[in-house]
């Protein structure tokens, strides 16, 4: 039941990462790292999540900004989506990410919303966000998978008790770009491939990412692997602004002439994690980007889809998005 009234909590506003990590460690599961607030405040207002301590990351300058390193571009997790969509280096080398960021929510939300927040946000399954006691909320049922449930936005693939999808627009782009997630806690730093960062419900139904209590995503690294490749991003949604994807595709192609040497094709909003289409990528190797090949890629993309009562339209939608990505045109 939506309440629209935030409960009290201890608010910490650290100015360096070490202090933030110390606080996250101290509070563990009772602590909450907050960046732009668009996911967090929603939960707090509805009192569906009531952390004892909120660690507001906004004051930590070192988490902001885009830096060139020898082999990659490093984006601070607190960098806003507006900065990402308009940054010359990202536009020049990783336009796929710029385009994905550009399609997030609305301009106002992108001004405050961060890359880290966009990646780590919780699912938008309306039942779960409404505050029902479903599997993901620690209960013992999934409301959205019931025969007459309103599940138009839900998963085609990988359902395991939970049928929610990954809502992030930038996550598929980061998986496609072979990005690396820099995660820190008081014990040290680890770097996780974007493709391994998101959590399947089969593994842990209570989390959307591999982050544990005490962990903080501090940066995202984009290796040069796909810099300047041919990119394609498209998000299908009911509205052009302030809407989550019904399905999205993020793709990168390395071509020789018209022949595809390698590719990455990742779909959003069709599974609980960004869905990388490895079989399609394999099939495309050595093929030319033609209508026929694109059609075949689209067909292959949706194999094994298990639609719910209201979302089978996502099958042609996803097939068409992948087709368009391979074709390279709308």
């Amino acid at each position, binding site marked *: 039941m939506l*309440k*629209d009234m935030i409960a009290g909590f201890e608010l910490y506003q650290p100015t360096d990462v070490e202090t933030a990590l110390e606080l996250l460690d101290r509070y563990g599961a009772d602590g909450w790292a907050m960046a732009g607030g668009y996911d967090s405040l929603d939960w707090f207002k509805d009192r569906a999540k009531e952390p004892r301590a909120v660690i507001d990351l906004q004051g930590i300058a070192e988490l902001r900004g885009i830096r060139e390193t020898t082999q990659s571009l490093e984006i601070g997790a607190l960098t806003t989506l507006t900065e990402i969509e308009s940054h010359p280096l990202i536009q020049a080398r990783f336009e796929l990410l710029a385009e994905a960021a550009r399609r997030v929510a609305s301009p106002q939300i992108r001004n405050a919303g961060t890359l880290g927040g966009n990646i780590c946000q919780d699912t938008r399954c*309306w039942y779960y966000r*409404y505050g029902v006691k479903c599997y993901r909320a620690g209960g013992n049922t999934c409301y959205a998978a019931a025969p007459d449930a309103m599940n*138009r936005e839900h998963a085609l693939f990988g359902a395991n008790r939970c049928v929610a999808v990954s809502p992030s627009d930038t996550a598929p782009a980061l998986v496609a770009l072979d990005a690396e997630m820099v995660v820190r806690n008081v014990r040290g730093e680890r770097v996780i491939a974007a493709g391994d960062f998101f959590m399947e419900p089969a593994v842990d139904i209570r989390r959307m990412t591999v982050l544990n209590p005490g962990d903080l995503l501090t940066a995202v690294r984009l290796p040069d692997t796909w810099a300047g490749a041919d990119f394609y991003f*498209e998000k*299908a949604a009911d509205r052009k*602004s302030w809407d989550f994807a019904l399905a999205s595709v993020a793709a990168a192609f390395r071509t020789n002439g018209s022949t595809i040497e390698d590719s990455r094709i990742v779909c959003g909003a069709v599974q609980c994690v960004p869905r990388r289409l490895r079989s399609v990528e394999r099939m495309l190797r050595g093929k030319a980007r033609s209508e026929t090949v694109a059609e075949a890629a689209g067909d292959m993309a949706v194999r094994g889809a298990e639609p719910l009562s209201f979302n089978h339209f996502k099958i*042609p939608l996803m097939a*068409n998005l992948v087709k368009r990505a391979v074709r390279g045109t709308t």
Partner: protein
Amino acid sequence: MAELIGKDFTPPDIRAKVTGAAKYSEDFRMDGMLFCRLLKSPMPHARVRSIDARRALEMEGVVAILTADEVPAQTAPGNNILTNEPHFVGEPILAVAAVDETTAQNAIDAIVLDLEPLPFCIDPLESLRPDGPNARTAGNTFSREQGVFEHKWTQEDFQAAAEGEMPMGAPGDEWQYGDLEAGFSQATLILDESFVTASNAHHSMEPRTAMAYWQNGKCYVHGSAQSQAMIVPGLANYIGIPPEDLVFIAEYCGGGFGSKGGAYPVMSIPAHMAKKTGRPVMMRISRAEEYFLGAARCGFQGRMRLGFRADGRMTACDLYIVQENGPNTGFGDMGSAAGAVSLVYTPLAMRYRGISVLTNTPPRSAQRGPGQNQMAAAIEPLLDKAARELGLDQVAIRRINAPDNNARYGGGQGSVTSAYLGEALDLGAERFGWSERRARSGRRTGSKVIGVGVGQAFHSAGSSGFDGLVRIDTDGKLHIHTGIGNLGTYSYASTSRVAAEVLAYDWDNCVIERGDSSRHLPWNNGQFGSNTSFTMTRTNYVAAMDALAKLKQIAALRLGGRATDYDIRNETVFRRDAPSQRMTYAQAARWAIEMGGPYSGQNLPDDLNDMTRRSAEALAGTGLIGVARDSDRHIGTVPALAAGFIEIEVDVETGAVEILDYLGVADCGTVLHPQSLGAQVRGGAVMGFGMAASERHVYDPEWGLPGAVGFHQAKPPTYLDVPVNTDWAAVEIADPQNPVGAKGIGEPLMGCATAALLCAISDALGGHYFNRTPVVADMILNALSDRAPSHRALAVNTQ
């Protein structure tokens, strides 16, 4: 030649709005003010077994709890103030007042509420089944005479309908005119179609926040309302006081779209709480709460049989509507929908049957074009289907059926004041370049296909019989007292200019008195039903004419001659044959005070409403008072008519719809204020596009939970979903029953856009008619890929 009517001007409240200086209910603060929050039902239908608030009341900062037992009970199925038997998720059960909102919510969380779940229903057709659930313990429908009762169809009624076809059992309402069977027998083409139009939330930008306090026996309420005077008696009744003891303040309204037209019960909660606590009380309503309490448009499940001659003339219409009415009194959409068909398409014979069914979804209220706009969404694409089958142009089939001044309305076949829909179609087709655009229909570029559409809509848009009140003060300024309200269209201002026009005033010397009962406002209609332009020009006209007569009488009495010898110019009264014999309005006002009697409001006409009388009495002796009832009533329905023209692109691979261009044409008689008409045409279209193609009103059928309780879930269109520039035009033929020729227009401007967009989508898809609105991407994609639709036939609240 009018000096003010038809000219653009800057309404006096606009600066405050754009600078943020305007104060809405939520912006007021009082010393010692408490905040209250609502404990709302988590269940779609339940009975309160017990409330244990001991722990809540012990919390520091918690001042009081207010339960349903402490506020006036409403006769079922009226909207409740608070209730012990909630009928929808989000219905307020009790309120808690505390020193701040967090404390109030903490207290609510600490209340132990024991609810007994009761059967519920979110689909009218299910409720009509012989063993179907009822939304209320007493039944599933109601009438004024009988209250709530049970209305069921028989098993045979359901079996008589084919798969996916709308069954039609006993109706609760019906009328007919003409010979229906004769109509069908002369038809070349008969369509028999079942349809669904979804409910829509109102999405008012300003939630219905209210603040109240008591002072010297009077109750002061700051509320969010479209209307002013019309709110007072209803709200006073909810509070339990006589209307004269209520001071109602509502200077600005952040949108109501019909849901804030009259008094609504939750607005009285702060007043009750303030009385109980002896302190001012603010009740801020949140966005989610606005989706629970902010009402919704009635949804339809229906069926229509339409007969057409080869030339497209509609010979017969047999219409059946099952209306989803929410759990309470709801609104009379279905009857208005039927009336709209009778007028817009003038079928030679028509039968209407309907049944309004209660469901455990948010209470319904009027929403912009209640009934008429759902009907536009349902029937206009079928007109195109008929045109396609008969080989006719979409504009032509509308033109041949369009109403003119001889058109008749509804089952009673009453007259209309004026109707120029045909002229609107002609003007629109010409200006939009319809023939050239139509030639592009179906053209495919890549994955995108062009579609074009034309849509029409109607609303009854005018009333009469209300009071006008103006005052010329001793500085010569004209005060125009208006009780209509300020829902955001600025029509309160453009209609006030009629008084200035009559009295030949410089607009800079006029003051509009409004927004607060203590400014002595007359009894006026509510600002709903697109009626302001017609109704308020009439009331302001009669008040100004009364002032004008008094100016001339005073001049004659003071300067000699007869009143008829005098005329006005530059805010002076002068003798026509001796212009040097003159008197300024300021002088006349001073004379009026000295002479007293009717001139300064000491004697008042007998037929004034009590509210107007009280206001005029309060103003008596402060200037020249013009006050009169608009007693020479108008005859017939005042039709606001509109036509919309649209060109779109549908992406056949994603189902995305791009609106390329839109033109809205209004038949609203004389245009009072071109800029605000333009804003209405465009704004109405945006709202209409949402109704046609993006909005969602979703309920889980198993739990009765709402799935669209935020802007991002309910999805009204954003700026990026509509063209930057859209065009508008007006027929500009004066209505004969209005002193300046004006009619209202706000509502059909939405419906014509809804209809046009739906028609264009079907056009782009080569004539695929969904018979369900809104048409969203999933439906388009399923249709294009030959997949079955996800929605069960005729199901509601699934999109």
